[in-house]
């Protein structure tokens, strides 16, 4: 068993979380249905994106559980989305949660979110399958 499996497992966990939400969003885009735990899953991503804004907001968000709690997971998100884009994406996701907004614009937002999550998933799987490729490995090499 690889000694670094715990670190790798955190990357895989992120990829699987991203895929879980992507599965839900794909159904929404294709069939217009909010299946399973669609709302709490999307809301969790909104909260994570919002908490990443500043050191202060991150400290505040620690009072409750984060969706992406580990350092490895946060750095992976940092790799795929800039601070400004995080806020834009969070705003779009909030619209996705409001059932009374237009279906077509919601599907567009859902597609954008799928692409973002796909990038997150790709990076996370890469770090899982190629240990040592991450910022984490550099930052915490001891």
């Amino acid at each position, binding site marked *: *068993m*690889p*000694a670094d*499996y*715990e670190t*790798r*497992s*955190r990357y*895989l*966990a992120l*990829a*699987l*979380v991203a*895929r*879980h939400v*992507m*599965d839900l969003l*794909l159904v929404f*885009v*294709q069939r217009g249905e909010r299946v399973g735990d669609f709302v709490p899953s999307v809301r969790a991503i909104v909260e994570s994106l919002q908490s*990443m*804004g*500043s*050191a*202060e907001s*991150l*400290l*505040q968000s*620690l*009072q*409750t*559980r984060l969706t992406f*709690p*580990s*350092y*490895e997971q*946060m*750095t992976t998100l*940092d790799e795929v989305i800039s601070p400004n884009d995080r806020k834009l994406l969070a705003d779009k996701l909030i619209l996705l949660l409001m059932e009374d907004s237009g279906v077509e614009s919601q599907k567009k937002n859902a597609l954008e979110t*799928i*692409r973002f999550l*796909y990038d997150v*998933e*790709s990076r996370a*799987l890469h770090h*899982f*399958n190629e240990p040592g490729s991450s910022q984490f490995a550099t*930052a*915490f090499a*001891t």
Partner: protein
Amino acid sequence: MNSSEDLRHDAGSLYRFIQLIAASCQADSGHQAYDAPSIQFFTYIDELAKVTLSYLDRFADAGPVDPDLYYIYRQKLLDLRSGWSMLHNFIKPAFDADTLQVPSPLIQWLTRRLNMLATFRAATFVVFHTSEVNYLHLNTGAIRDLAGQLSSLIPGGKGFPADLGLIGIPYSQASALFLNCLIPHEIGHYAYQETTAINRLLPHVANSISSVLLPKIASVTPSDIQKCLARIQSWAQELFCDLFAIWMIGPAYSYAYIEIFDLPRVLSPDGKAMDLECGFNASHPSHIFRLQQQIELLKQLGWWRHIVKTKSHYSEVLQAIMNVDVSKFGFSLPENTSLGTDTLASFLLLCPHIHDVVTATVSGLDSGVHGFEEYQKDIQKYLSRAVVPSSLVHNGVLCHPDPVAIINASYGLYLEALDDLIIHVEGQDSTSVRVRGQWTDRLELWTMKAIEDYGLLINQATV
């Protein structure tokens, strides 16, 4: 190259990969015997494999019509392959740990002891072998989480059984008892995960970090907070597990800890080894800090007065560690020195809360110190005469001492009076390390037998 045919081919490749894993997961295919938790684990893997294979069988049919989504959909194959690669790491080690290759009486007793707590009434543990000698670096909670996440991606997939924990032991140490007193630490990881202890700690984590970093927030980045948080979360879990282990098995855990890390060397008068072992690393608090925290709990539970009376250098190690000043502890982050210091300062503020969460988690559990006080001398007398101390006559009454008392009395005998055991046997040279090793084996054997007998006697008494 984005046709259904390509997708069918790639799904087929993964299908075969998982099919072969499933084929190797048949508990009834060999001569080995497994206990119920292991069978449950193999059954879970087998069922997860079946639903995964069923899903893959029609995976290509359900691909999105929109060609832009093809590679997004396809990447799920890599999720599944990566998840199964992770599970793959645990299946063979679990098969290697058949009932003859694990310290079954100890694990069964620890499980029964854990089951006394209402939260863990139904908990059981599957044992797997690991090539890691250092058990304390295994955190099996992650694999349980991952199996649950993986199953959530597959229609019909079931989450990892909540009552099933995983325990890894070094493949060579199944017959050892004293070193396996580290196993309660691993059970602690299960308890930490199942009680979501982190959620109870998180507000205190936030307050601790805020106390240290808020005054200088202008120069702190979100990345700094995340680095700090990552270390503190990891350290907190390790400390939780150490304290949990002390509750479960008493000072035998600290003794085993000293043994596996060869810590008597910290008694060197030049102090260099002690200083070296004060440094925290990215995933674990320092040995000296961890033992100091264990000592604090041992004192609180009433074990300490027995430890200081033990005539062994292990007792001296613990007493020396107790006196190490907090200023000796350090955590180095080469790229950001002050963040390393701040992370450690935040963690030190958190520690009393970790003690509180452990105490709340084990609420209602008897530490076992009173049984030890009552029966220690009798148990050691029996063992030094090569008699298994499962039933003993104490003040004229037949008694069955609890394994906490048996293990700690036996460990005490091993540390301070192994000579007394050896000199009773003609022709044995107690100055020979080989001979001492042989008698230690026997001492462990008798102690393990007493633990096994206790389970039978208690079952008999309750029938």
